Protein backbone atom coordinates (compact mmCIF):
# COMPACT_ATOMS: atom_id res chain seq x y z
CA UNK A 1 0.00 0.00 0.00
CA UNK A 2 2.94 2.32 0.70
CA UNK A 3 3.85 2.21 -2.98
CA UNK A 4 0.34 3.34 -3.92
CA UNK A 5 0.53 6.34 -1.59
CA UNK A 6 3.96 7.31 -2.94
CA UNK A 7 2.67 7.15 -6.51
CA UNK A 8 -0.39 9.22 -5.54
CA UNK A 9 1.95 11.83 -4.11
CA UNK A 10 3.90 11.78 -7.38
CA UNK A 11 0.64 12.41 -9.27
CA UNK A 12 -0.06 15.46 -7.10
CA UNK A 13 3.45 16.87 -7.64
CA UNK A 14 3.31 16.37 -11.41
CA UNK A 15 -0.19 17.90 -11.52
CA UNK A 16 1.10 21.03 -9.78
CA UNK A 17 4.07 21.20 -12.13
CA UNK A 18 1.75 20.69 -15.13
CA UNK A 19 -0.15 23.86 -14.20
CA UNK A 20 2.94 25.84 -15.15
CA UNK A 21 3.15 24.33 -18.64
CA UNK A 22 1.05 25.19 -21.66
CA UNK A 23 0.65 26.89 -25.03
CA UNK A 24 0.45 30.41 -23.62
CA UNK A 25 3.38 31.76 -21.65
CA UNK A 26 2.16 33.09 -18.32
CA UNK A 27 4.36 35.63 -16.55
CA UNK A 28 5.04 34.90 -12.89
CA UNK A 29 3.36 31.53 -13.31
CA UNK A 30 4.24 30.10 -9.88
CA UNK A 31 2.91 33.21 -8.11
CA UNK A 32 -0.44 32.69 -9.88
CA UNK A 33 -0.48 28.99 -9.11
CA UNK A 34 0.34 29.39 -5.43
CA UNK A 35 -2.39 32.05 -4.98
CA UNK A 36 -5.04 29.35 -5.67
CA UNK A 37 -7.39 32.17 -6.76
CA UNK A 38 -10.18 30.48 -8.74
CA UNK A 39 -12.35 33.62 -9.04
CA UNK A 40 -9.60 35.94 -10.30
CA UNK A 41 -10.35 37.97 -13.45
CA UNK A 42 -6.69 38.32 -14.37
CA UNK A 43 -5.89 36.62 -17.67
CA UNK A 44 -2.95 34.67 -16.25
CA UNK A 45 -5.01 33.34 -13.36
CA UNK A 46 -7.85 32.43 -15.69
CA UNK A 47 -5.54 30.50 -18.02
CA UNK A 48 -4.24 28.51 -15.08
CA UNK A 49 -7.45 27.95 -13.12
CA UNK A 50 -10.12 27.88 -15.83
CA UNK A 51 -8.27 26.18 -18.70
CA UNK A 52 -5.31 24.18 -17.37
CA UNK A 53 -6.57 23.10 -13.95
CA UNK A 54 -9.82 21.38 -15.05
CA UNK A 55 -7.94 19.64 -17.84
CA UNK A 56 -5.22 18.40 -15.48
CA UNK A 57 -7.65 17.21 -12.82
CA UNK A 58 -9.83 15.70 -15.55
CA UNK A 59 -6.79 13.77 -16.84
CA UNK A 60 -6.07 12.40 -13.38
CA UNK A 61 -9.67 11.28 -12.84
CA UNK A 62 -10.10 9.83 -16.34
CA UNK A 63 -6.82 7.93 -16.11
CA UNK A 64 -8.01 6.34 -12.88
CA UNK A 65 -11.45 5.51 -14.31
CA UNK A 66 -10.00 3.96 -17.48
CA UNK A 67 -7.55 1.85 -15.47
CA UNK A 68 -10.32 0.54 -13.21
CA UNK A 69 -12.33 -0.33 -16.34
CA UNK A 70 -9.30 -2.29 -17.53
CA UNK A 71 -9.04 -4.21 -14.25
CA UNK A 72 -12.75 -5.05 -14.47
CA UNK A 73 -12.41 -6.19 -18.09
CA UNK A 74 -9.42 -8.46 -17.37
CA UNK A 75 -10.82 -9.74 -14.08
CA UNK A 76 -14.32 -10.44 -15.33
CA UNK A 77 -13.21 -12.28 -18.49
CA UNK A 78 -10.32 -13.97 -16.68
CA UNK A 79 -8.13 -12.92 -19.57
CA UNK A 80 -4.91 -10.85 -19.53
CA UNK A 81 -5.64 -9.50 -23.03
CA UNK A 82 -9.07 -8.10 -22.21
CA UNK A 83 -9.63 -4.39 -22.67
CA UNK A 84 -12.92 -2.47 -22.79
CA UNK A 85 -12.12 -1.86 -26.44
CA UNK A 86 -12.29 -5.65 -26.98
CA UNK A 87 -15.69 -6.06 -25.36
CA UNK A 88 -17.53 -3.64 -27.64
CA UNK A 89 -17.87 -1.16 -24.77
CA UNK A 90 -15.70 1.62 -26.16
CA UNK A 91 -17.15 1.46 -29.68
CA UNK A 92 -20.68 1.29 -28.25
CA UNK A 93 -20.06 4.41 -26.18
CA UNK A 94 -18.65 6.25 -29.20
CA UNK A 95 -21.66 5.25 -31.30
CA UNK A 96 -24.01 6.44 -28.53
CA UNK A 97 -22.37 9.88 -28.45
CA UNK A 98 -22.22 10.18 -32.26
CA UNK A 99 -25.94 9.38 -32.54
CA UNK A 100 -26.73 11.84 -29.74
CA UNK A 101 -24.70 14.59 -31.39
CA UNK A 102 -25.90 13.98 -34.96
CA UNK A 103 -29.56 14.01 -33.85
CA UNK A 104 -28.92 17.34 -32.10
CA UNK A 105 -29.89 15.84 -28.78
CA UNK A 106 -26.61 16.73 -27.06
CA UNK A 107 -23.31 18.44 -27.83
CA UNK A 108 -19.89 16.84 -27.61
CA UNK A 109 -18.42 16.60 -24.09
CA UNK A 110 -21.64 17.87 -22.56
CA UNK A 111 -23.04 16.14 -19.52
CA UNK A 112 -25.99 14.84 -21.54
CA UNK A 113 -23.54 13.06 -23.84
CA UNK A 114 -22.49 10.84 -20.92
CA UNK A 115 -26.03 9.48 -20.83
CA UNK A 116 -25.96 8.72 -24.57
CA UNK A 117 -22.54 7.09 -24.24
CA UNK A 118 -23.68 5.02 -21.28
CA UNK A 119 -26.67 3.72 -23.24
CA UNK A 120 -24.43 2.85 -26.22
CA UNK A 121 -21.76 1.25 -24.01
CA UNK A 122 -24.27 -0.78 -22.02
CA UNK A 123 -26.17 -2.00 -25.09
CA UNK A 124 -22.96 -2.98 -26.90
CA UNK A 125 -21.47 -4.73 -23.86
CA UNK A 126 -24.72 -6.56 -23.14
CA UNK A 127 -24.91 -7.61 -26.80
CA UNK A 128 -21.40 -9.12 -26.50
CA UNK A 129 -22.33 -10.71 -23.18
CA UNK A 130 -25.54 -12.17 -24.61
CA UNK A 131 -23.86 -13.57 -27.75
CA UNK A 132 -20.90 -15.20 -25.95
CA UNK A 133 -21.16 -18.44 -24.02
CA UNK A 134 -17.87 -18.31 -22.12
CA UNK A 135 -14.97 -16.06 -21.20
CA UNK A 136 -12.92 -16.84 -24.31
CA UNK A 137 -15.82 -16.24 -26.69
CA UNK A 138 -16.43 -12.92 -24.97
CA UNK A 139 -13.19 -11.53 -26.36
CA UNK A 140 -13.66 -12.82 -29.90
CA UNK A 141 -17.29 -11.74 -30.14
CA UNK A 142 -16.44 -8.46 -28.41
CA UNK A 143 -13.81 -7.69 -31.06
CA UNK A 144 -16.39 -8.42 -33.78
CA UNK A 145 -19.02 -6.23 -32.12
CA UNK A 146 -16.40 -3.45 -31.71
CA UNK A 147 -15.36 -3.67 -35.34
CA UNK A 148 -18.97 -3.41 -36.51
CA UNK A 149 -19.83 -0.46 -34.28
CA UNK A 150 -16.56 1.38 -35.00
CA UNK A 151 -17.24 1.05 -38.71
CA UNK A 152 -20.69 2.59 -38.22
CA UNK A 153 -19.16 5.46 -36.19
CA UNK A 154 -16.52 6.07 -38.89
CA UNK A 155 -19.08 6.08 -41.69
CA UNK A 156 -21.46 8.33 -39.73
CA UNK A 157 -18.70 10.86 -39.05
CA UNK A 158 -17.45 10.75 -42.65
CA UNK A 159 -20.84 11.47 -44.21
CA UNK A 160 -21.98 13.95 -41.54
CA UNK A 161 -21.90 17.43 -43.05
CA UNK A 162 -21.49 19.24 -39.75
CA UNK A 163 -18.70 21.40 -38.44
CA UNK A 164 -19.29 20.59 -34.79
CA UNK A 165 -18.91 16.88 -35.36
CA UNK A 166 -15.21 17.11 -34.89
CA UNK A 167 -12.58 15.25 -36.84
CA UNK A 168 -12.34 11.49 -36.75
CA UNK A 169 -9.19 12.04 -34.70
CA UNK A 170 -11.20 13.08 -31.66
CA UNK A 171 -12.99 9.75 -31.65
CA UNK A 172 -10.08 7.51 -32.57
CA UNK A 173 -7.26 9.17 -30.63
CA UNK A 174 -9.01 11.29 -28.02
CA UNK A 175 -8.38 14.80 -26.69
CA UNK A 176 -8.77 16.37 -23.28
CA UNK A 177 -8.87 19.97 -24.55
CA UNK A 178 -12.63 20.47 -24.07
CA UNK A 179 -12.72 19.71 -20.33
CA UNK A 180 -14.23 22.36 -18.05
CA UNK A 181 -14.97 22.47 -14.31
CA UNK A 182 -18.53 21.25 -14.89
CA UNK A 183 -17.15 18.18 -16.71
CA UNK A 184 -14.73 17.62 -13.84
CA UNK A 185 -17.58 17.75 -11.32
CA UNK A 186 -19.50 15.03 -13.19
CA UNK A 187 -16.32 13.00 -13.71
CA UNK A 188 -15.58 13.09 -9.97
CA UNK A 189 -19.00 11.75 -9.07
CA UNK A 190 -18.72 8.94 -11.63
CA UNK A 191 -15.14 8.16 -10.54
CA UNK A 192 -16.10 7.80 -6.87
CA UNK A 193 -19.05 5.56 -7.80
CA UNK A 194 -16.90 3.41 -10.12
CA UNK A 195 -14.08 3.07 -7.57
CA UNK A 196 -16.42 2.18 -4.70
CA UNK A 197 -18.45 -0.37 -6.66
CA UNK A 198 -15.36 -1.97 -8.23
CA UNK A 199 -13.79 -2.33 -4.78
CA UNK A 200 -16.96 -3.88 -3.43
CA UNK A 201 -16.83 -6.42 -6.27
CA UNK A 202 -13.14 -7.24 -5.74
CA UNK A 203 -13.53 -10.51 -3.74
CA UNK A 204 -15.78 -11.85 -6.50
CA UNK A 205 -13.28 -10.81 -9.17
CA UNK A 206 -10.60 -12.81 -7.31
CA UNK A 207 -12.94 -15.79 -7.37
CA UNK A 208 -13.44 -15.54 -11.15
CA UNK A 209 -9.75 -16.40 -11.59
CA UNK A 210 -10.57 -19.95 -10.42
CA UNK A 211 -12.66 -20.51 -13.56
CA UNK A 212 -16.41 -20.73 -14.10
CA UNK A 213 -16.99 -24.34 -12.97
CA UNK A 214 -15.17 -23.80 -9.65
CA UNK A 215 -17.30 -20.74 -8.95
CA UNK A 216 -20.52 -22.61 -9.72
CA UNK A 217 -19.37 -25.45 -7.47
CA UNK A 218 -18.85 -22.96 -4.66
CA UNK A 219 -22.45 -21.83 -5.02
CA UNK A 220 -22.19 -18.63 -7.06
CA UNK A 221 -23.16 -17.71 -10.61
CA UNK A 222 -20.09 -16.50 -12.55
CA UNK A 223 -22.22 -14.85 -15.22
CA UNK A 224 -23.91 -12.70 -12.61
CA UNK A 225 -20.55 -11.46 -11.27
CA UNK A 226 -19.50 -10.77 -14.86
CA UNK A 227 -22.68 -8.83 -15.58
CA UNK A 228 -22.15 -6.54 -12.57
CA UNK A 229 -18.53 -5.95 -13.65
CA UNK A 230 -19.74 -5.07 -17.15
CA UNK A 231 -22.28 -2.58 -15.81
CA UNK A 232 -19.58 -0.77 -13.85
CA UNK A 233 -17.09 -0.80 -16.70
CA UNK A 234 -19.72 0.45 -19.17
CA UNK A 235 -20.40 3.49 -17.03
CA UNK A 236 -16.66 4.10 -16.63
CA UNK A 237 -15.96 3.86 -20.36
CA UNK A 238 -19.05 5.85 -21.34
CA UNK A 239 -17.95 8.71 -19.13
CA UNK A 240 -14.49 8.68 -20.61
CA UNK A 241 -15.58 8.39 -24.27
CA UNK A 242 -18.25 11.09 -24.01
CA UNK A 243 -15.80 13.57 -22.48
CA UNK A 244 -12.57 12.96 -24.36
CA UNK A 245 -13.19 10.44 -27.16
CA UNK A 246 -11.68 6.97 -27.23
CA UNK A 247 -8.39 6.56 -25.41
CA UNK A 248 -6.90 3.17 -26.11
CA UNK A 249 -4.13 1.11 -24.48
CA UNK A 250 -4.31 2.71 -21.03
CA UNK A 251 -7.02 0.33 -19.78
CA UNK A 252 -4.97 -2.63 -21.01
CA UNK A 253 -1.58 -1.48 -19.69
CA UNK A 254 -2.37 0.06 -16.28
CA UNK A 255 -3.66 -3.16 -14.62
CA UNK A 256 -0.60 -5.12 -15.75
CA UNK A 257 1.81 -2.47 -14.47
CA UNK A 258 -0.13 -2.33 -11.19
CA UNK A 259 0.12 -6.14 -10.72
CA UNK A 260 3.88 -5.83 -10.52
CA UNK A 261 3.50 -3.41 -7.64
CA UNK A 262 0.80 -5.06 -5.52
CA UNK A 263 0.18 -8.57 -6.90
CA UNK A 264 -3.04 -10.04 -8.29
CA UNK A 265 -5.49 -9.51 -5.40
CA UNK A 266 -8.19 -7.17 -6.70
CA UNK A 267 -8.64 -5.43 -3.38
CA UNK A 268 -5.30 -3.67 -3.84
CA UNK A 269 -5.07 -3.96 -7.61
CA UNK A 270 -8.02 -1.63 -8.23
CA UNK A 271 -6.50 1.23 -6.21
CA UNK A 272 -3.01 0.64 -7.60
CA UNK A 273 -4.22 0.54 -11.21
CA UNK A 274 -6.23 3.72 -10.66
CA UNK A 275 -3.13 5.58 -9.49
CA UNK A 276 -0.99 4.19 -12.35
CA UNK A 277 -3.70 5.14 -14.87
CA UNK A 278 -3.91 8.66 -13.43
CA UNK A 279 -0.12 9.01 -13.59
CA UNK A 280 0.19 7.83 -17.20
CA UNK A 281 -2.70 9.93 -18.51
CA UNK A 282 -1.48 13.01 -16.63
CA UNK A 283 2.06 12.71 -18.02
CA UNK A 284 0.74 11.93 -21.51
CA UNK A 285 -1.65 14.89 -21.55
CA UNK A 286 0.93 17.28 -20.14
CA UNK A 287 3.32 16.17 -22.89
CA UNK A 288 0.54 16.44 -25.50
CA UNK A 289 0.03 20.12 -24.78
CA UNK A 290 3.61 21.17 -24.08
CA UNK A 291 5.80 19.31 -26.60
CA UNK A 292 4.87 21.42 -29.63
CA UNK A 293 2.73 24.36 -28.48
CA UNK A 294 0.30 25.68 -29.57
CA UNK A 295 -0.43 22.30 -31.11
CA UNK A 296 -2.31 19.78 -29.02
CA UNK A 297 -0.90 16.36 -29.95
CA UNK A 298 -3.32 13.40 -30.00
CA UNK A 299 -3.34 11.97 -26.48
CA UNK A 300 -3.62 8.35 -27.66
CA UNK A 301 -0.22 8.56 -29.36
CA UNK A 302 1.49 9.85 -26.23
CA UNK A 303 -0.13 7.23 -24.01
CA UNK A 304 1.27 4.51 -26.24
CA UNK A 305 4.64 6.23 -26.35
CA UNK A 306 4.86 6.44 -22.54
CA UNK A 307 2.76 3.45 -21.45
CA UNK A 308 4.13 0.81 -23.80
CA UNK A 309 7.81 0.99 -22.69
CA UNK A 310 6.71 1.00 -19.02
CA UNK A 311 4.56 -2.06 -19.67
CA UNK A 312 7.41 -3.89 -21.42
CA UNK A 313 9.83 -2.96 -18.63
CA UNK A 314 7.39 -4.19 -15.98
CA UNK A 315 6.85 -7.49 -17.82
CA UNK A 316 10.60 -8.02 -18.28
CA UNK A 317 11.79 -7.07 -14.80
CA UNK A 318 8.88 -7.72 -12.49
CA UNK A 319 9.04 -11.51 -12.18
CA UNK A 320 6.20 -13.87 -13.03
CA UNK A 321 2.87 -12.24 -12.19
CA UNK A 322 0.75 -14.06 -14.74
CA UNK A 323 1.06 -16.45 -17.66
Amino acid at each position, binding site marked *: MKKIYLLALLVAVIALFALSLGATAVSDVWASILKFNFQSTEVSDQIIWQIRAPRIIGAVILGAVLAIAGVLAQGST*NNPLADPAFLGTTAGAALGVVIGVLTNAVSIASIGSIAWATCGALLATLLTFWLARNALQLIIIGIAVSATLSAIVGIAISIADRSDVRSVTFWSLGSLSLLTWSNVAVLSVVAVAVLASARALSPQLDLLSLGDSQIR*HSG*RDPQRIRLIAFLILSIAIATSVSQVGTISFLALAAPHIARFLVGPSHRYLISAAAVIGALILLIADTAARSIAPPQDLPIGLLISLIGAPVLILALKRGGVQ*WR
Partner: protein
Amino acid sequence: MALIEIRNLGVTRGKQQVIKDLSLDVKEGTITAIVGANGSGKSTLIGAIAGDHRLDTGSISLCGNNLTKISLAEQSRLRSVVTQNQVFWLAFTVRQVIEMGQSIENLSRVESVISQLDMGEIVNQSVLTLSGGQLQRLAIARALVCDTPIYLFDEPLASQDKKSKADLIALFCKMRDEGKTIVIVMHTEVSDLDWCDQIIEDLS
Protein backbone atom coordinates in the same frame (compact mmCIF):
# COMPACT_ATOMS: atom_id res chain seq x y z
CA MET B 1 -29.52 -44.23 4.14
CA ALA B 2 -28.59 -43.39 0.54
CA LEU B 3 -27.14 -39.89 0.46
CA ILE B 4 -26.91 -39.86 -3.33
CA GLU B 5 -29.76 -41.46 -5.30
CA ILE B 6 -29.47 -41.74 -9.05
CA ARG B 7 -32.51 -43.04 -10.96
CA ASN B 8 -32.62 -43.92 -14.70
CA LEU B 9 -30.00 -41.30 -15.50
CA GLY B 10 -29.26 -40.40 -19.14
CA VAL B 11 -26.66 -37.73 -20.08
CA THR B 12 -25.59 -36.65 -23.57
CA ARG B 13 -22.25 -34.91 -24.27
CA GLY B 14 -22.06 -33.42 -27.74
CA LYS B 15 -24.02 -35.84 -29.89
CA GLN B 16 -23.17 -38.96 -27.94
CA GLN B 17 -25.25 -40.35 -25.10
CA VAL B 18 -22.50 -41.11 -22.59
CA ILE B 19 -24.67 -42.35 -19.74
CA LYS B 20 -27.78 -44.47 -20.40
CA ASP B 21 -30.39 -45.47 -17.87
CA LEU B 22 -28.06 -45.57 -14.87
CA SER B 23 -29.41 -46.16 -11.38
CA LEU B 24 -27.15 -46.03 -8.36
CA ASP B 25 -27.30 -45.54 -4.60
CA VAL B 26 -24.41 -44.16 -2.57
CA LYS B 27 -24.79 -44.78 1.15
CA GLU B 28 -23.80 -42.31 3.81
CA GLY B 29 -20.27 -42.74 5.19
CA THR B 30 -18.91 -44.78 2.26
CA ILE B 31 -16.33 -44.42 -0.47
CA THR B 32 -17.54 -45.18 -4.00
CA ALA B 33 -15.00 -45.55 -6.81
CA ILE B 34 -15.98 -45.01 -10.44
CA VAL B 35 -13.52 -46.77 -12.75
CA GLY B 36 -13.46 -47.59 -16.45
CA ALA B 37 -11.79 -46.87 -19.77
CA ASN B 38 -11.14 -43.36 -21.17
CA GLY B 39 -14.32 -41.83 -22.52
CA SER B 40 -16.54 -44.28 -20.64
CA GLY B 41 -18.38 -41.40 -18.92
CA LYS B 42 -16.71 -41.39 -15.49
CA SER B 43 -16.14 -37.63 -15.42
CA THR B 44 -19.54 -37.03 -17.00
CA LEU B 45 -21.20 -38.91 -14.15
CA ILE B 46 -19.35 -36.98 -11.46
CA GLY B 47 -20.08 -33.74 -13.38
CA ALA B 48 -23.77 -34.66 -13.47
CA ILE B 49 -23.81 -35.23 -9.71
CA ALA B 50 -22.00 -31.88 -9.33
CA GLY B 51 -24.79 -30.20 -11.28
CA ASP B 52 -22.64 -29.34 -14.34
CA HIS B 53 -24.69 -31.15 -16.99
CA ARG B 54 -28.26 -31.12 -18.20
CA LEU B 55 -29.94 -34.47 -17.57
CA ASP B 56 -31.73 -36.06 -20.58
CA THR B 57 -33.65 -38.50 -18.43
CA GLY B 58 -33.90 -39.57 -14.82
CA SER B 59 -33.03 -37.76 -11.64
CA ILE B 60 -30.26 -37.26 -9.09
CA SER B 61 -30.95 -36.46 -5.46
CA LEU B 62 -28.47 -35.32 -2.83
CA CYS B 63 -29.44 -35.78 0.82
CA GLY B 64 -33.05 -36.14 -0.29
CA ASN B 65 -33.05 -32.96 -2.45
CA ASN B 66 -33.72 -33.21 -6.19
CA LEU B 67 -30.62 -31.71 -7.79
CA THR B 68 -32.49 -29.80 -10.51
CA LYS B 69 -34.78 -28.14 -7.98
CA ILE B 70 -32.17 -26.62 -5.63
CA SER B 71 -30.01 -23.51 -6.13
CA LEU B 72 -26.25 -23.39 -6.71
CA ALA B 73 -25.80 -22.13 -3.15
CA GLU B 74 -27.82 -25.01 -1.69
CA GLN B 75 -25.87 -27.52 -3.80
CA SER B 76 -22.61 -26.07 -2.50
CA ARG B 77 -23.72 -26.72 1.08
CA LEU B 78 -24.37 -30.41 0.27
CA ARG B 79 -21.29 -31.32 -1.76
CA SER B 80 -17.76 -30.19 -2.58
CA VAL B 81 -16.23 -30.86 -5.98
CA VAL B 82 -12.61 -31.35 -7.01
CA THR B 83 -12.16 -31.23 -10.77
CA GLN B 84 -9.14 -32.01 -12.94
CA ASN B 85 -6.88 -29.51 -14.69
CA GLN B 86 -7.30 -26.35 -12.69
CA VAL B 87 -5.62 -23.55 -14.67
CA PHE B 88 -4.35 -20.34 -13.10
CA TRP B 89 -3.01 -17.24 -14.87
CA LEU B 90 -2.60 -14.88 -11.93
CA ALA B 91 0.13 -15.25 -9.31
CA PHE B 92 -2.07 -15.70 -6.24
CA THR B 93 -0.42 -17.54 -3.35
CA VAL B 94 -1.62 -21.01 -2.35
CA ARG B 95 -3.14 -19.57 0.83
CA GLN B 96 -4.98 -16.82 -1.07
CA VAL B 97 -6.55 -19.44 -3.36
CA ILE B 98 -7.60 -21.69 -0.47
CA GLU B 99 -9.22 -18.74 1.33
CA MET B 100 -10.85 -17.21 -1.75
CA GLY B 101 -14.62 -16.72 -1.37
CA GLN B 102 -14.84 -18.85 1.81
CA SER B 103 -17.24 -18.09 4.64
CA ILE B 104 -15.90 -17.14 8.07
CA GLU B 105 -16.78 -20.62 9.33
CA ASN B 106 -14.84 -22.22 6.46
CA LEU B 107 -11.86 -19.92 7.05
CA SER B 108 -11.54 -21.28 10.60
CA ARG B 109 -10.71 -24.70 9.11
CA VAL B 110 -7.95 -23.49 6.75
CA GLU B 111 -4.99 -24.10 9.08
CA SER B 112 -5.99 -27.67 9.94
CA VAL B 113 -6.61 -28.51 6.27
CA ILE B 114 -3.19 -27.12 5.32
CA SER B 115 -1.49 -29.38 7.87
CA GLN B 116 -3.72 -32.37 7.00
CA LEU B 117 -2.60 -32.13 3.38
CA ASP B 118 1.00 -31.36 4.32
CA MET B 119 0.97 -28.07 2.41
CA GLY B 120 2.75 -25.95 5.04
CA GLU B 121 5.84 -25.50 2.89
CA ILE B 122 4.07 -24.31 -0.24
CA VAL B 123 1.36 -22.19 1.35
CA ASN B 124 3.05 -18.87 0.54
CA GLN B 125 4.19 -19.92 -2.93
CA SER B 126 2.66 -18.54 -6.13
CA VAL B 127 0.21 -21.03 -7.65
CA LEU B 128 2.00 -20.53 -10.98
CA THR B 129 5.00 -22.44 -9.59
CA LEU B 130 3.09 -25.55 -8.43
CA SER B 131 3.47 -29.05 -9.91
CA GLY B 132 0.48 -31.05 -11.14
CA GLY B 133 0.28 -33.02 -7.89
CA GLN B 134 0.50 -29.86 -5.77
CA LEU B 135 -2.28 -28.22 -7.83
CA GLN B 136 -4.46 -31.28 -7.16
CA ARG B 137 -3.80 -31.05 -3.43
CA LEU B 138 -4.69 -27.33 -3.59
CA ALA B 139 -8.04 -28.18 -5.18
CA ILE B 140 -8.62 -30.86 -2.51
CA ALA B 141 -7.76 -28.30 0.19
CA ARG B 142 -10.42 -25.87 -1.13
CA ALA B 143 -12.96 -28.70 -0.99
CA LEU B 144 -12.03 -29.90 2.51
CA VAL B 145 -12.32 -26.38 3.93
CA CYS B 146 -16.01 -26.44 2.96
CA ASP B 147 -16.88 -29.39 5.24
CA THR B 148 -19.88 -30.73 3.28
CA PRO B 149 -21.53 -34.16 3.77
CA ILE B 150 -20.64 -35.26 0.22
CA TYR B 151 -17.30 -35.03 -1.63
CA LEU B 152 -16.88 -35.57 -5.37
CA PHE B 153 -13.29 -36.11 -6.57
CA ASP B 154 -12.33 -36.38 -10.25
CA GLU B 155 -8.98 -38.26 -10.46
CA PRO B 156 -7.47 -36.83 -7.26
CA LEU B 157 -4.60 -39.37 -7.29
CA ALA B 158 -3.57 -39.01 -10.94
CA SER B 159 -0.41 -36.87 -10.50
CA GLN B 160 0.52 -37.89 -6.96
CA ASP B 161 3.73 -39.74 -6.05
CA LYS B 162 3.55 -43.00 -4.11
CA LYS B 163 3.71 -41.44 -0.63
CA SER B 164 1.21 -38.63 -1.39
CA LYS B 165 -1.13 -41.24 -2.89
CA ALA B 166 -0.99 -43.33 0.29
CA ASP B 167 -1.46 -40.21 2.45
CA LEU B 168 -4.50 -39.11 0.45
CA ILE B 169 -6.07 -42.58 0.58
CA ALA B 170 -5.56 -42.58 4.36
CA LEU B 171 -7.18 -39.14 4.50
CA PHE B 172 -10.18 -40.30 2.45
CA CYS B 173 -10.64 -43.31 4.76
CA LYS B 174 -10.44 -41.04 7.81
CA MET B 175 -13.11 -38.77 6.28
CA ARG B 176 -15.34 -41.80 5.66
CA ASP B 177 -14.89 -42.91 9.27
CA GLU B 178 -16.05 -39.45 10.33
CA GLY B 179 -19.25 -40.01 8.29
CA LYS B 180 -18.41 -38.23 5.04
CA THR B 181 -19.67 -39.69 1.75
CA ILE B 182 -17.09 -39.77 -1.01
CA VAL B 183 -17.33 -40.49 -4.75
CA ILE B 184 -14.01 -40.78 -6.60
CA VAL B 185 -13.30 -41.15 -10.30
CA MET B 186 -10.13 -43.18 -10.78
CA HIS B 187 -7.90 -44.82 -13.34
CA THR B 188 -6.77 -47.58 -11.02
CA GLU B 189 -6.92 -51.38 -11.30
CA VAL B 190 -9.93 -52.70 -9.41
CA SER B 191 -7.59 -54.96 -7.39
CA ASP B 192 -6.02 -51.84 -5.81
CA LEU B 193 -9.34 -50.52 -4.55
CA ASP B 194 -9.77 -52.60 -1.39
CA TRP B 195 -10.14 -49.35 0.60
CA CYS B 196 -13.35 -48.47 -1.30
CA ASP B 197 -16.80 -49.68 -0.24
CA GLN B 198 -18.40 -49.72 -3.69
CA ILE B 199 -16.90 -49.94 -7.16
CA ILE B 200 -18.83 -48.85 -10.28
CA GLU B 201 -17.36 -50.13 -13.54
CA ASP B 202 -20.05 -50.05 -16.19
CA LEU B 203 -21.93 -46.81 -16.76
CA SER B 204 -23.76 -47.48 -20.03
